[in-house]
């Protein structure tokens, strides 16, 4: 027990406190940091890119909760039966999850390419030329284009979580419902959903955390561009720290992101420790 605690302290706890310390300094990552108090946080509050990034993270969060979650649940409900070929479809939907975000992003960069990309070429072929958009360079749509890419594996992920949850529902309960004459709709709302609560909590928490710490898709596909319109906190932090030599400022961003995620983790833990549903 002692060794894991020490390792955890060195690799997880200590860096957190060191980052908090750094957020009160000005540091180029090379020479010694100088203490500047809350200067970084004052700058942060006046930084338009910070607000763009924060606002984009909120977009990611809302859409992540509203789209992949219900979709994942729908797929799970549909595939939770033994039909011929069901495994094949499950695998097909699960597949994007096995790809790294960098690969996914590269594929979607081609799909979105404005002139020869799959989407615009298809639209043109259908005579819908006026619907073609420069998906990654139009500052009004770029964030949504990126979120779509993220939703793809995220749906698969939640599907797996819900499938596991569905396996845990005892067949007796389902049979009892049938005997009592509950229709499908009633069974879903009154029995399946409440019993899926543990799986749902995990799925929601993971989805929220994923959406807040999103980095790879943004970094690979747009680097936060054009002109920072698709920026998110995690990528902004990276750019400030490693490209602009402002480690102190990047640390302040990290602390803010950390606090936001912490808030959701607390909500999550609170839900976990509440009494579980009895049946």
């Amino acid at each position, binding site marked *: 027990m002692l060794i894991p605690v020490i390792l955890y302290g060195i690799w997880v706890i200590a860096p957190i406190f060191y980052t908090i310390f750094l957020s009160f300094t000005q540091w*180029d*990552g*090379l*020479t010694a940091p100088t203490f500047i108090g809350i200067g970084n946080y004052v*700058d942060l509050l006046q930084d338009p890119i910070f607000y763009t990034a924060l606002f984009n993270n909120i977009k990611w969060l809302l859409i992540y909760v509203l789209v992949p979650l219900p979709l994942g649940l729908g797929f799970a409900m549909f595939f939770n039966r033994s039909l011929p070929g069901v495994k094949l479809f499950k695998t097909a939907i699960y597949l994007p999850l096995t790809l790294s975000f960098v690969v996914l992003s590269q594929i979607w960069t081609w799909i*979105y*390419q*404005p*002139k020869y990309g799959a989407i615009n070429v298809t639209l043109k072929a259908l005579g819908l030329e006026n619907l073609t958009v*420069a998906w*990654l*360079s139009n*500052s009004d749509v770029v964030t949504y284009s990126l979120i779509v890419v993220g939703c793809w594996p995220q749906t698969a992920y939640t599907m797996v979580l819900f499938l596991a949850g569905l396996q845990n529902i005892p067949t007796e309960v389902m049979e009892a419902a049938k005997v009592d004459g509950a229709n499908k709709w009633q069974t879903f709302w009154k029995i399946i959903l409440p019993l899926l609560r543990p799986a749902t909590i995990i799925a929601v928490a993971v989805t929220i955390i994923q959406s807040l710490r999103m980095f790879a898709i943004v970094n690979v596909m*747009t*680097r936060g*561009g*054009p*002109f*920072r319109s698709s920026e998110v906190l995690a990528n902004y932090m990276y*750019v400030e720290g*490693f*490209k*602009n*030599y*402002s480690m102190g400022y990047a640390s302040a961003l990290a602390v803010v992101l950390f606090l936001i995620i912490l808030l959701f983790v607390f909500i999550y833990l609170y839900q976990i420790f509440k009494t579980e549903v009895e049946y």
Partner: protein
Amino acid sequence: MKKITGNLVVSILIVSFLIGVSLVAIGAEKKVVINSYMADPAPKETLKKLVDNFEEEYPDYEVTINTYPHEDYKTLIRTWLPSKKASPDIVTWFAGERANFFVEKGLIAPLDDIWGEGKGFEDYFPRAFKSISQFEGKTYFLPQSWYWWGFWYRESVFEELNLTEPVTWNQFLNVCEKLKENGYTPITIGSKFRWTAAGWFDYLNLRLNGADFHMKLMKGEASYDTQKVRKVFEHWKQLLDRGYFIENHTSYSWQEGAKFLFNKEAGMYLMGQFIQDVVSDEEIKDDLNFFRFPIMDASVPIAEETPTDGYMIPKNAPHPEAAKTFMHYLATKQSQWFFAEELNRIAANKNIEPSKYDPMVQKGLRMINRSDKVTQFYDRDTKPAMADKAMDQFVKFMVNPGQIDQVLNALEAQREKTFE
């Protein structure tokens, strides 16, 4: 069983480690490790050949090249330089302010003893290179080669439309108009990685306000929120308003932008000579030519961008003496000529006869020789934080040309922050 497997794994690890160590010991006596950002196929291959030549001449040396993608390299170098363990012996880097950034922090070793008996920097390189290689009286940067910038175009397109290389701004606007009338996009650019837009800012500012003002701006000594800088954006806006630039340029990398020039969808591309590195088709390569960025105000001394690439030895280099031997080799006429010839660059070494170069390079060299001033490039001449924020503004402006006031305000606010 578990224990036996564990022991086995440990012994295999130890044995393979020992073999590895002894192999290194048997191999070459003097090792040099170079970390390089030359990741495009042509320069990567050339550096490899250069190293092979060196090893042939100095058989007891063993040179290893680690290549990193250009954009990643700029981030990673900061983790190598301060590290006592992970530092390479030689790094590729950019001359001028970008080199000085690390020199100021004491992370680079001086090179003043590599030139050989009774020789010095000036025996190898033009005096003008001192300002981008020497800091506080010592040489830290070894220039290898440089290139010029210009408007690249396809001769066959200009012939077809009966166009000649424009010299003045008005002639340039006429060329743009004529290209547009004939169904070409006059100017291509790929601004996804932003620096291509900085090239436009640099040139417009150099032509309208001159190199002296430009360098003051780069050093944070002049304000962005002035009539002079406004003029730069107003001229830029002229081109944007007339739809001369390619659509959706923020989607494309510089290489993707170049494709529109190669396949004749677009007419011209403001770009460095390295555009020739990415042409694979010989026919297009022969068809490619360039002209000087047009003169906008005849009273302003002509300035050109001549970004210079080269090498430095980190302070923590594990084999500094071997590295210096290689650096000396890199400075020689023979190795500089080899590198420049392979890639159509211009060698920094001054002893190379200009007539030896490819005609295209001679044209570039003539252009530079007839210029009054040279600069490096926006992100090489100013501080990193300023460059990062400013390049956002340049791209933003190209998409929203109506927002000159906002752009000027943002640039000036960042200057005050960076150079406070």
